[in-house]
């Protein structure tokens, strides 16, 4: 991942009044949601596997466009 400045403050600057509107989620709930998400994603990937173009490397390499606007 090209992640830069990932350690930066999330709510930097003078935005005090808004922080109340953006409540942090309890970690427990986040973890559960993430686990459920992973199960969901695996189900999605199984569906996608069936339609992905064969020979990804060749397919992607031959997708060459002329520049546009």
């Amino acid at each position, binding site marked *: 991942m090209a992640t830069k*400045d*990932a350690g930066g403050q999330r709510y930097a*600057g003078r*935005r005090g009044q808004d922080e109340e509107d*953006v409540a942090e989620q309890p970690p427990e709930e986040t973890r559960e949601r993430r686990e459920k998400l992973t199960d969901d994603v695996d189900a999605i990937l199984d569906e996608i596997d069936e339609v992905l173009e064969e020979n990804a490397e060749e397919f*992607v390499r031959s997708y*060459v466009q002329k*520049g546009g606007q």
Partner: protein
Amino acid sequence: MSVRRVMGIETEYGISVPGQPGANAMVSSSQVVNAYHHATAARARRARWDFEEENPLRDARGFDLSRDVADASQLTDEDLGLANVILTNGARLYVDHAHPEYSGPECTNPLAATLWDKAGERVMEEAAAHASAMPGSPAIQLYKNNTDNKGASYGCHENYLMSRATPFGEIVRHLTPFFVTRQVFCGAGRVGIGADGRQDGFQISQRADFFEVEVGLETTLKRPIINTRDEPHADPERYRRLHVIIGDANMSEIATYLKLGTTALVLSMIEDRFISADLGIDGPVAQLRAVSHDPSCRHLIPMRDGRRLTAIQVQMEYLELARKYVQDRYGPDVDDLTADVLARWESVLTRLAEDPMRLAGELDWVTKLQLAEGYRARDGIGWSHPRLQLVDLQYSDVRAGRGLYNRLVAAGRFGRLLEEDEVRRAVTEPPEDTRAYFRGRCLQKYPDAVAAASWDSVIFDLPGHESLQRVPTLDPLRGTRAHVGDLIDRCATAAELVMALTGK
């Protein structure tokens, strides 16, 4: 004004002939456009595009670029004889820069513009299917994306009609920070960093790495964050058309709708001189990329006033201004669409700030990232793996059966704003509240009498007339169903219509 104003989207689609990498893209694109014409209106004469009022070298800053110094790719008004079809929904389907392009009809609000943009995907799907079905023709596939990940980019442009009275400098000043940061909800996501995708990784925007300057006239080279092309296709004394080239082509209806709705609100605030705060960004071109390259959305942008804000926080500042503006101008009388755009904008930003992955199934880039991360975890592959680049590409495949976005929608895993029935209708029917209605209805009812048309004209070839009869449609808000619906219903022939309109 609110989120309501004259607007529209034009999209160049990526085109591929699998197994024939050497295929001429201009020829393939022409085949796609021609196949659509033959399949949908084979017996009708083909109306030409009327270039009379086009002036792509007019610059919003007040001078004309000399034709001699212009790059050949900027001369869009010279009819190169490439395929062109004007559709009964008021859109234009044609070949531009070796890509098939769908320029949607003029609409009056972000939801309608989203609808006719989605209809464009169906037009392209159908067009490619017809082209591929021609005897001896290879399969042609179309993608609603913005880069081949090898250095080439092609655009999805938004157009907004604006008041001529607004100084262009004000537009640049207040729109630039908005454009640098709005990608957090309307980025389409991209596997690959750098124009040629040489660096491995994921970024929020398809287009960010192709922008080099802050303001300029070009669209194909040295791309600017704010494009100054000034062809209003309307009364130039009253209007300018803001031609926005920085956006990604979105599959997500929610992303397209928010992109149009929030931009329209910011433009209204600029026209009404409502923004006094300076949200200026230090080095906007570099920051555009930095924001795109950080899918955690935590990158801190150096602001000219010394603060360091995330892109989401900059957007929150625009949202707050827009809330105050709408409250100030409309109070409880705010229209439903404006209220809806504000509510969605806030909801999306709030959840992005909590955890961007909460927007999977709503925003393109988050969904694409979720798929890519899923494959990385399941198959233990790195960012350079071609499967991830294929997922990026195939996400935007316009086919219902093969496009990954379309599959997610079909499986109920991606939220929609539109009903498929209305999308199907928008493939053939024009919006009813702009001049696109007049253009579309004329092509529906008098296809053999329309010799040419453009955004601001319909030209008739009538029996008994030696010269062509040009009906100007310079006002985007005239020629609506309310204005001409009964008249067109009543006139059995184009000659009757022209006589009723001109008295000749």
